[in-house]
């Protein structure tokens, strides 16, 4: 075992402290907006910290580490594309400022304002299913990372997964967005420190020249050129270019940080400052993965290589700090995702089906129950599901399941007057077809006729989902303008009045 007494002490102190702070945050929840979007009072630096913490988890380190191990420097292109995506949003306020101005809590709420309640329900179902499938593998990756880096062995994986889940669920369910934001901030500081420790010790043990040499000798030109690398190519790059903007602006856990900000301008700036860190947060774990290639060679389990390297190069004491940092990263991601998807399920899937509206207390109670159910699903799914592609591609594809349709509906809804309800239905349905087909057909790959094999190419499937969703929105809207004229968006309420609005009656 790599973990010693001092490491365990650091870990226990950190975990206990986080749960205590998260539970204490409960006292700040004063209204439903307080629970879901922290009363919309979050400023730029805090919003950026919590967004970065949300978007970095052990799962992020794992899939980027796996990509680095399998593709060498080629995968660094994703850091450049991700940076580009956040900069587009951060500079222009594309999508996020428009949604924040309308004061929605979830993305499907926008569908009701711009289209109708049924579109909201369909959008909510797709968002929830795609989001939960996306999140389904997180816990498993944490289990692999922790057991490998701490040297606990494969048999401890399920126990580690259960402990992680219980801790995060406890404070997320009780404290809502206030807990998420406060613990996210603490976790942001610790995870940045953990990343610094890991990078420093890896670079002390593995030289840059040996890393570069390993890439060239093991992978040749495909290790440095993303176009010729068989995992990537042009279709993948085009998919990522669209997907990076769509997933950044429409990933409910991330965009809810913009909804929680004190104004649309602050919401935009949160994305801008987060964007500056984006290339680094992609490339740092990728570099760890490439370093694992240099140390272990190319024949190891690609998921296990990077955490095993960390476990072997980081000394006792520092290992406890690093693992605390990695756990911090995961806990902030889980809490934000659990809250986001349970909010969507409550407000956009269950509430529209009921005849009478839910009270605030009922809303929050249902959200808490759903968060717990999602947690159990993650545990079962994480233990038994076999990934059909690399972890990164699986996540990008399940993300595309909801983001492709949402991107067409929200972009057209905000910026195109002719977008109507038929276009919205078509966009949502066609956007989900490609990824859904891939997930099912990839299990039957051997029996598929040759003509349909393109459907099990993850890159084609992901790229097509965005093309089909956009085509569905444009053709559907233009073909039915007379019968279903577009609904105009309501005038946004003065954003400065939010804090007062949500506290009327106190």
């Amino acid at each position, binding site marked *: 075992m790599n973990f010693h007494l001092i490491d365990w002490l650091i870990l226990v102190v950190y975990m206990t402290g986080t749960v205590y702070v998260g539970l204490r945050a*409960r*006292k*700040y*929840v*004063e*209204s*439903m*907006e*307080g629970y879901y979007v*922290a*009363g919309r*009072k*979050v*400023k*730029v*630096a*805090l*919003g*950026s*910290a919590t967004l*970065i913490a949300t978007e970095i988890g052990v799962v992020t380190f794992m899939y980027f580490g796996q990509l680095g191990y399998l593709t060498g*420097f080629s995968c*660094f292109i994703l*850091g*450049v594309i991700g940076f580009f995506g956040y900069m587009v949003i951060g500079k222009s306020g594309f999508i996020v400022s428009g949604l924040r101005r309308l*004061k*929605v*809590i979830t993305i499907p*709420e926008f569908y009701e*304002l711009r289209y109708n309640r049924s579109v909201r329900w369909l959008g909510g179902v797709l968002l929830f299913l795609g989001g939960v499938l996306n999140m389904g593998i997180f816990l498993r990756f944490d289990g692999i990372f922790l057991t490998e880096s701490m040297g606990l062995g494969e048999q401890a994986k399920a126990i580690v997964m259960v402990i992680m889940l219980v801790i995060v669920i406890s404070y997320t369910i009780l404290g809502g967005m*206030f807990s998420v*934001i406060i613990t996210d*901030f603490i976790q*942001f500081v610790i995870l*940045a420190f953990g990343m610094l420790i890991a990078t420093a010790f890896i670079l002390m043990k593995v030289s840059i020249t040996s890393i*570069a*040499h390993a890439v*060239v000798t093991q992978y040749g030109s495909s290790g*440095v*050129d993303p176009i010729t690398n068989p995992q990537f190519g042009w279709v993948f790059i085009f998919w990522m270019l669209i997907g990076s903007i769509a997933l950044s602006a429409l990933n409910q856990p991330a965009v809810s940080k913009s909804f929680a900000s004190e104004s649309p301008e602050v919401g935009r700036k949160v994305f801008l*400052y987060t964007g*500056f*860190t984006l*290339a*680094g*947060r*992609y*490339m*740092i774990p990728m*570099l760890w993965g490439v370093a694992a290639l240099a140390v272990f060679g190319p024949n190891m389990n690609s998921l296990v290589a990077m955490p095993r390297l960390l476990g072997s190069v980081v000394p006792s004491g520092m290992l406890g700090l690093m693992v605390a940092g990695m756990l911090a990263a995961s806990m902030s991601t889980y809490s934000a995702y659990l809250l986001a998807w349970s909010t969507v399920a409550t407000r956009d899937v269950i509430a529209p089906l009921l005849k009478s509206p839910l009270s*605030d*207390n009922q809303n929050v109670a249902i959200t808490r129950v759903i968060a717990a159910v999602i947690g159990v699903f993650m545990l079962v799914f994480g233990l038994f599901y076999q990934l059909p592609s690399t972890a990164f591609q699986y996540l990008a594809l399940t993300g595309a399941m909801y983001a492709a349709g949402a991107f067409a509906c929200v972009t057209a809804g905000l910026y195109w007057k002719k977008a109507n309800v038929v276009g919205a239905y078509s966009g949502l349905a066609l956007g989900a077809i490609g990824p859904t087909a891939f997930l099912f057909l990839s299990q039957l790959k051997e029996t598929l006729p040759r003509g349909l094999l393109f459907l099990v190419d993850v890159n084609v499937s992901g790229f097509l989902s965005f093309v089909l969703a956009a085509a569905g929105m444009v053709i559907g809207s233009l073909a039915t303008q007379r019968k279903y004229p577009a609904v105009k968006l*309501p005038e946004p*309420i003065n954003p400065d009045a939010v804090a007062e*609005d*949500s*506290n*009327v*009656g*106190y």
Partner: protein
Amino acid sequence: MSAISLFWMILCGISTLTFFSVALAITIFGIQDLRSLLSKSNKKSNNGKITISGTKDIKRRNETQ
């Protein structure tokens, strides 16, 4: 080391340094923001009980549609 390997390594180095520099700045300013958030919210705290509708704006907007 080939030119393209060198390019990726330099890019990775710049991105890593930017990440940690921005993270440090966000930590410093974030502490102030967190204090401000908690002091504002604490004044209106209701011990975790959710007592009124926080969706007045959405409801009001739906009514005016």
